Structures are given as C-alpha cells and as structure tokens.
C-alpha cells in the first residue's frame, strides 16, 4: 500500500483532479439543462411540456454507460458519415456531454418537483400584483422552491461525482481509470481498489458535510 502511494501518488492526485473537473463541468451544465427542462415541464405550454418530458424520459431511460458510448463513438461516427471526416470528441468533451445530459435530466425532475411543491397561491399573488409569469416565477416561486430542492440537488451532485467512474470506459483518465492502470502494473488488487475507494469516500464525505452546513444555514434564514 505504501509502495503504491509512493509510486503512484501524484498520478492518483492528478486523476482525482480530473474526476473533480469532470464533475464540476457536468454539474454546471446539468444545472442549466435542468433549469431549462424543469421550467418547460411546469409551464402550461403543451409543446414545451412534451419536449421536456421526452428529454427526461429518453435520458433517464438509457444507462449512462450506453449514453457515454453513444456520444463518444456513435455521434462522431455519424457526423463523420455526413462528410465532416475530421470530427472527433475527446474523452473530456464526450464525458462532460454524457454526464451533463444524464445529471440534467434528474436535475430537471428535482427542479420541477421543487417548483410544484410551492403553493399555487404564491404565483397567483405575484400575478395579481401585476408581475409577469417570469417575474413571479423568478422573484417569488423559485426562491422558495430552492429550499426544498437543496437536499436533492446535493444528493444528485454526489451521484454525479460517483458516476464519473463510469466514464473510465471511454478512456477518460479519472480516478477509476487510473486505478485500472495501477492494477495492471502492480497486480495489487486489494490495495489499489482500497486506495481508490477511500479517495472517493473522503471527497464525498467532505462534500456532504459541507452541504449539510449550507443546508442548515439556509434553513436558519427562515
């Protein structure tokens, strides 16, 4: 174990950095995607409802590993097929897209549920004062919805962080992938995977501790 840490320490740290980078990028995009599709689903426009539902159902209906393969191999092959022969996605790009789409679908559901948990009267009161739908949503409903959303969002963050390991299949040099490499060099299964597991655990436990604190602070405001 000490040997592995001594030899592969910097590699492991760098891999952890890649994992966090991928997580962070995906979360940012997922928030945007989730906001867009979540809002589509709470409105009363049938076309937008339909688009929102199709997106969420489609992405949730596909395992992340299949989505990753589809975007890393399938999409470039398709685009090359229509003439753009130099088109490629690197593992970070494809990984970020796949993970953002996946996490975005769950985020959309969290945001939809959060908004719908706010009493309808809040929107009506906003509208009755002359505020537009958008202004009532943004100033009145969403600030209240966020409170109920926060635990689920944090939970989704943690799931996404762990899901980055799935992207080892497309060769992205994140923690799990580097684990495989170390395993291949050392044949020390137990030690290698114990170290990788602990690294994930430390990050995730730290994150959930921090988020608990944030949650408590937000709830204290009210």
């Amino acid at each position: 174990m000490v040997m592995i840490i001594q030899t592969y320490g910097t590699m492991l740290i760098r891999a952890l950095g890649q994992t966090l980078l991928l997580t962070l990028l995906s979360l940012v995009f997922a928030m945007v995607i989730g906001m867009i599709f979540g809002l589509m689903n709470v409105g009363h426009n049938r076309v937008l409802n339909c688009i929102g539902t199709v997106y969420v159902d489609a992405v949730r209906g596909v395992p992340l590993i299949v989505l990753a393969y589809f975007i890393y191999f399938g999409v470039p092959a398709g685009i090359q097929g229509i003439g753009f022969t130099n088109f490629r996605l690197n593992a970070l790009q494809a990984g970020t897209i796949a993970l953002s789409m996946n996490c975005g679908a769950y985020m959309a559901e969290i945001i939809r549920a959060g908004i719908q948990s706010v009493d309808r009267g809040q929107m009506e009161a906003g509208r009755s004062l002359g505020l537009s739908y958008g202004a009532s949503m943004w100033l009145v409903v969403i600030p209240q919805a966020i409170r109920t959303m926060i635990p689920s969002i944090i939970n989704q963050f943690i799931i996404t962080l762990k899901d980055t390991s799935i992207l080892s299949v497309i060769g992205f040099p994140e923690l799990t992938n580097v684990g495989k490499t170390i395993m291949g060099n050392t044949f020390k299964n137990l030690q290698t995977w114990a170290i990788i597991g602990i690294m994930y655990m430390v990050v995730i436990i730290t994150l959930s501790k921090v988020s608990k604190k944030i949650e408590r602070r937000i709830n204290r405001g009210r």
Partner: protein
Amino acid sequence: MADNKISVRNLKKSFGSLEVLKDISLDVSEGEVVVLLGPSGSGKSTLLRCLNQLETATSGHIIIEGQDVTDKHTDINKVRENIGMVFQHFNLFNHLTVLKNMTLAPVHLKTLSKAEAKEKAMKLLERVGLADKAEAYPSQLSGGQKQRVAIARALEMNPNILLFDEPTSALDPEMVGEVLAVMKELAREGMTMIVVTHEIGFAREVASRVIFMEGGYIVEEGTPDEVINHPREPRTIDFLSKVL
C-alpha cells in the same frame, strides 16, 4: 359603460365539462362595495378570479376601467396593477419580510422607487396597525395580521379596485374583526370593492349591493336590506335560513 369600473357581459366559465359560470352579467360603478353571497360551488370565487383573469373566461367579456381583459391584446399585467386581490389563504411571500412583501412588485415594476415604496409601505402598515412588524417574516404573524399585511400589500400598488376572496374564512373567529375593520375603513374611503364572503353582518353593514349566486347564475341582487332582510327568491331564502 365608461362610468362603470367593471362591466361583465355574458361571462361563461367552464372547467372541462363542468360549467361553473353560466351567463353572468354585472356592472360595478366607482365606490361601490359589492358583496357576493352564495353556497360553495356557486361560482362566486370563480367570478372574482375571472375579473383579474386568474381564470380565463370561456366566453363573454369583462371590461375593467374601459379595457377588455378577455381580449388577448390587452396587457393583463398592466390592468392587474390596478386591481388588488386579497386571498383566503393570504398568500404572503413566505421568503420575504413584511416590508419586502409589499415593496417587491412596485419596485420591480418601477411604479415606485425603492425609497418611495418603503415609505408608502410603512404608512400603510401603520394604517393597518402593523408598523412594528415591518421586518417580521409571515411565519411570525397571526392569521389576522397576515391578512392585514396582504391588504396593505394590495394597497401598495394604489389599486382602483380591490377583490376579496373569502378574506376571513381561514381566520380564527377572534381575528375576523380586525380584518373586517380594515375593510370597512376602505369602503368608507370610497374604494371600489368586490367581496366574496360568508360574513352576512359585514354585507349588511358595508355593502352597497348584495348579489346572491347559485349554480353559476346570479339569482338575486339588490341592497343588503332587499336581499338579506327581504329576499324574494326561494333559493336565497333557503340559503339565508341556513347561515343566519
């Protein structure tokens, strides 16, 4: 028609196959206090909510201060600035202080500057006896206090018309009086008001006109004395015998 603050012509409203309002016509002139009475399900709240288009009319016309709000080209948000609404469940913005509840809309819509909005809000809060609650959150107020804040919030927009949707129905009995007192004062000052309520005493004392609705129709209307003390329609008599 220009004299009328509100003109409703042949208004119908259906929810799916359920027709809640069947051909309602109604005029309200400036300074009138119209009380809508009727059993639950008679359509009085729906009628009220159609006036500011929280419910869209299925057919018919509603003209508010000369503007047809059933017309898609009317800027309904602009019209709503002039029609305050007070809800049964107060609907105060729970994440904002009393003061912010009141100043949110006028500041966002730029009808008042931040300083003006605050000054006006403080005056209104004083008027409803809650100046000391400006920095409180809704969850820290009693029901009666919440409803008084809700009225003040509606007044902050300087409306010409106020709609009340069962404003005292969700209140503990001992808090009804404080809310009715504020409403009476508004009526005295000449505010045009339409009130859905079960408070017969309020109707008798304050209303300039009482309308009894049932089954989506206006069954009877007239002065409080006519409708409450000397009702002619059997359905009105039946209803009043149950609530009085």
